[in-house]
């Protein structure tokens, strides 16, 4: 039970962060007088601050708790009981591997944003293993079962071709292209291009357009390559392992990321498929956790498997989380009335907009433009109507599916994870026996609402009754 300091390499991280801060502040200060003087003082302050913080940060592995002391003027002590640790995330940069040093993020599951995360910037491997062991020991039931099943671990690795397709089909490319396009528009880069291409045009006839399209194609290929590299850096060697009740996710090329979490913390499993990935039959599996601020990579949902073939998705996920059945149940797809309602709802604003356009502008271009938009909106409505459905798949679980902008989303959730259920029905829907269904499910520190609209009343009422009378 001795006070320990972090590894000296902590200083590197602290300095690196402060250096970034220094440049940010420097840019702000640059217009001031005597900027060099201020910059030197600032630099010195930001250089000394990590040393003080490093010296003042001490931690102790106690018998029942992890104790962390920090602060020079405002002293702070944090006591974290091992059994309260929700999940542990380890990050290791490749250059720290020889030193056996890793960064640890400990999620304490506290309600407040500030208090639920503890970072040990650089710690020896041995100590992290010790913390993990302590945490597992405080959870007595899991250790006893673990002793029996320790060989029965399940493992999932991503195949290279799938990861490549995943990288290529990521929607980032479109947003990046759009950003570049708007940049070109805004700063009139096109003008330089034009004068440049005109000059070439005089030499090679009519090849100006050719050059521009060649440039665009090169740009797209470049972006694709960047995306592929980024995805490979992030998901390199993605391995998901299940040991009894604990899941371990490991990924990353330059920075190895390891996360341990308990399957008990899983609130819902979401299987998503974007429009592009539907073509390749690939799906992404995300999970909603009670407290996931450490591991959240996008909007509080936590990627369990970034990419998996549609054919095997439920079979694979079932091995890691029992919420998903081994064989994917068949859903009854939505009827024509639902397709009509979804189309109608999104058509109303489009029609108002096109009426306004036709009032101010005339010409075939506008007619075709609004025509295409209307068609897309109608198709989206039909698609959404077809894909929106709910089903009770066994005694205690629901499967719910809907789509948004041609992206599919299927959710598996159990009774114990649904915080509350709400039905909404307007008087017009009553006549046609339709109901909106809303589920509230815990996600991070708050709830996420899952909404399924215009479902048949009889089906939803049965689900509502099941939910109410389950206990």
């Amino acid at each position, binding site marked *: 039970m001795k006070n320990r300091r972090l590894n000296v390499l902590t200083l590197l991280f602290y300095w690196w962060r402060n250096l970034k801060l220094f440049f940010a502040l420097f840019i702000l200060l640059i217009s001031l007088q005597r900027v060099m003087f201020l910059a030197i003082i600032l630099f010195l302050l930001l250089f000394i601050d990590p040393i003080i913080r490093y010296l003042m940060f001490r931690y102790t592995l106690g018998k029942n708790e992890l104790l962390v002391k920090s602060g020079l003027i405002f002293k702070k002590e944090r006591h974290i009981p091992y059994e309260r640790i929700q999940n542990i995330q380890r990050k290791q940069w490749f250059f720290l591997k020889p030193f056996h040093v890793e960064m640890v993020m400990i999620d304490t599951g506290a309600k407040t944003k500030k208090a639920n995360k503890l970072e040990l910037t650089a710690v020896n491997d041995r100590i992290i293993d010790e913390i993990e062991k302590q945490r597992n020991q405080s959870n007595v039931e899991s250790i006893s079962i673990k002793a029996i099943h320790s060989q029965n671990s399940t493992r999932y690795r991503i195949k290279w071709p799938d990861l490549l397709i995943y990288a290529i089909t990521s929607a980032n490319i479109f947003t990046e292209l759009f950003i570049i396009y708007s940049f070109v528009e805004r700063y009139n880069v096109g003008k330089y291009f034009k004068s440049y291409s005109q000059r070439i045009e005089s030499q090679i006839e009519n090849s100006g357009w050719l050059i521009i399209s060649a440039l665009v194609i090169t740009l797209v290929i470049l972006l694709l390559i960047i995306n592929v590299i980024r995805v490979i850096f992030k998901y390199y060697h993605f391995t998901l392992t299940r040991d009894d009740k604990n899941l371990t996710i490991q990924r990353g090329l330059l920075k190895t990321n390891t996360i341990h979490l308990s399957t008990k913390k899983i609130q819902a499993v979401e299987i998503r498929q974007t429009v592009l990935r539907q073509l390749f039959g690939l799906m992404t599996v995300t999970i909603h956790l009670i407290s996931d601020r450490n591991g959240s990579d996008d909007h509080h949902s936590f990627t369990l498997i970034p990419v998996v073939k549609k054919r095997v998705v439920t079979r694979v996920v079932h091995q890691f989380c029992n919420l998903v059945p081994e064989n994917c149940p068949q859903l009854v797809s939505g009827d024509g009335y639902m397709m009509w309602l979804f189309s109608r709802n999104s058509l109303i604003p489009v029609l108002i907009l096109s009426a306004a356009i036709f009032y101010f502008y005339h010409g075939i271009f506008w007619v075709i433009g609004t025509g295409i938009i209307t068609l897309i909106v109608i198709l989206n409505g039909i698609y959404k109507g077809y894909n929106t459905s709910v089903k009770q798949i066994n005694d205690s679980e629901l499967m719910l599916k809907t789509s948004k902008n041609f992206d599919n989303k299927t959710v598996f959730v159990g009774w114990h994870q649904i*915080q509350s259920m709400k039905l909404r029905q307007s*008087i017009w829907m009553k006549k046609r026996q339709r109901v909106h269904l809303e589920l509230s499910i815990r996600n991070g520190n708050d709830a996420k609402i899952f909404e399924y609209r215009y479902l048949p009343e009889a089906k939803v009422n049965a689900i509502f009754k099941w939910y109410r009378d389950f206990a």
Partner: protein
Amino acid sequence: MKQLPKSIKFIWLQSAGFSFLAWLIFGIIYFVMTKFWSWLPSWGLGIIMALMVIEVVVEITLIPYRYAFYKYQVTETDVEIQKGFFFRKDVSIPIARVQNVDLNQGPLLRLQKLYSITIATGGSSHDVESLTHQEANYLKDRVMSLAREARNEK
């Protein structure tokens, strides 16, 4: 399914009265301001008065509707709240999911010896606009004992 205590109607009437007062004060302030700043149009006062009349009339006429279609039920296992007719909402909150129950009492509710309660689950929260002291306590005790049971099972 139970209805809210009858006296809630009187409370809603009172709160309509308060919004009348709030609009009136706003109108007076506006009137005074027009004396100082001549560029403020005098028809602004007309709009304020019109909004006041509309809001107060709508609030008062909706009271019977709100009362008639606001129902709740506390059973052994869940709390159910049902409201609205034109736009109907039906919520079920299992007691096992409830994290905490807040009993609130503003000055108006205090005069009528009523409580408004907020039921918070892990994330979402739901209101019942008013309950008598007895009902509120029953709900609270029920939730507490169930929560204790759940802990013991663990």
